[in-house]
């Protein structure tokens, strides 16, 4: 048996899935990112002073890219896996000779593919308003890939624990969205009260946004190496946890 073909097939299936519902998966974030940039960046941002020497519109773009990467990767894997559990076609996958490592990685790559499409789209839209060359393109890819894989992993875990569709949105509404907004998408640490600054340091999304901001603009609140390390550790832990859950058959096997 050629296991690479099996792995590639599952990656393809994940990509076919989100491309088959473009109107739900790709267009909505592009439309709302346009509105964010237009209203917050261009209209309101013109009245806000430069942050760390960067005009507010430009300062906001890396955070916005990260926000949509997080949303796209989480939504992709959580809905893909949960629908598979719900429609029972997860069985189709579980009886194949793919290893659990391959199954998890292929599903995560599906989330990565969707979030890269979204990231490119948001970046493309931002070019209508502001054009600048990324400070460190390799680092941009590093954060794009690992943040996407982290939230794809989170999406998979939530999809495994969830019993109903509503549980997927509960995690978004009460955990991910607040952490995203408090994670510095629209602001720098210097713009918030001291107490909140302390809290932000325990918010993993802060490191992702700040790292991405450094990669794109060359400015950050904390050293980019710290952010890169935090991101890597989070990915390693969450990926291993997912492989373990698949291996034990948590909510997958009877």
């Amino acid at each position: 048996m050629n296991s690479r073909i099996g792995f590639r097939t599952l990656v393809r299936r994940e990509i076919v899935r989100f491309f088959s519902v473009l109107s739900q998966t790709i267009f909505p974030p592009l439309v709302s990112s346009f509105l964010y940039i237009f209203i917050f960046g261009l209209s309101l941002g013109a009245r806000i002073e430069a942050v760390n020497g960067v005009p507010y519109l430009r300062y906001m773009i890396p955070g916005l890219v990260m926000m949509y990467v997080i949303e796209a990767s989480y939504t992709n894997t959580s809905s893909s896996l949960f629908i598979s559990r719900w429609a029972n076609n997860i069985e189709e996958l579980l009886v194949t000779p793919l290893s659990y490592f391959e199954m998890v990685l292929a599903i995560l790559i599906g989330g990565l593919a969707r979030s890269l499409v979204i990231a490119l789209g948001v970046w493309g839209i931002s070019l209508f308003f502001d054009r600048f060359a990324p400070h460190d393109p390799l680092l941009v890819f590093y954060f794009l890939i690992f943040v996407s894989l982290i939230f794809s992993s989170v999406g998979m875990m939530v999809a495994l624990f969830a019993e109903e569709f509503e549980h997927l949105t509960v995690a978004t509404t009460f955990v991910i969205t607040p952490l995203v907004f408090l994670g510095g998408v629209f602001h720098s640490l210097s713009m918030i009260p001291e107490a909140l600054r302390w809290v932000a340091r325990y918010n993993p999304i802060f490191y992702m946004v700040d790292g991405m901001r450094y990669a794109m603009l060359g400015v950050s609140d904390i050293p980019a190496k710290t952010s890169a390390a935090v991101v890597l550790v989070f990915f390693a832990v969450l990926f291993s946890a997912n492989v373990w859950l698949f291996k034990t058959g948590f909510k997958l096997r009877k």
Partner: protein
Amino acid sequence: MAPGEFFGFLGPNGAGKTTTINAVTGLANYQSGRVRVFGHDVTSDYRRSRAEIGLVPQEFNFDPFLSAEQILEFEGGYFGIPHRETKKRASELLEVFGLSEKRKDGYKRLSGGMKRRLLIARALMHNPRILILDEPTAGVDLELRHQLWDFLRRLNREGKTLFLTTHYIEEAEKLCTRVGVIHQGRMVGLDSTAKLIREISADRIVFYLKKEMTFLPEAAAGLGLRLEESGRRISFEEKAGLVPRVLKTLQALDQEVEKIDVEHPTLEDAFLKLTGKNESYIRPLMPSHLEMPEEK
């Protein structure tokens, strides 16, 4: 099971048939024992064991985002078959199962019979050594059932090992060379189909009476006779020397025998004996259940 066998796995609802299949295919965890498929342990060597199996599940579990053709192509891909080859095999199997015209349709647009055929086609995509079928003919019409039987017989003749669970005992009797009966999670019978029928159930002798017999006298009941058809028929299991004794008893009761018949047992008789299913789960309705509520 031996390679090349057509094995029937029978049991009442909830006996553990699907659970057994799930344990073999990796869809259920089990606490003790070992399961091996062609020598490969399904837990420690699950990749090899799963590559040998084609599973036709009881419920439809298709990917809702894919068309019939894509379902087959992706299945082939999961099992490591190159893309060009999966396209060829998918096309052939769609043809074999009469689904070519529906190749672009999602599974929800297929009829029940078509979905059943698609399940079998999907399980055959990687040409497995063993095909496990969990109630493959449930809910299909008579014509399709017979077509599927012919198809499965042909597969078995060509060397494919088949493992079948079914509610239609007749199906197992017609197709399977060996049968296992599971009841409350335990195997209560395991033998070749013919031997299982012969050893578990004897022939039944039937006497048709000229006169109606309203009840069985004590002497007759002691012989294990059963009064049937409003007292015009008496039947009993064949045992050495029993026929002359019954005839003598009937003579003493002034009964004449009009016709004698022998009923051969079926797999269904053996199944009912092994699983004790002669006892009904459904009790008669009480008179109070039949009363209509008065209108007020």
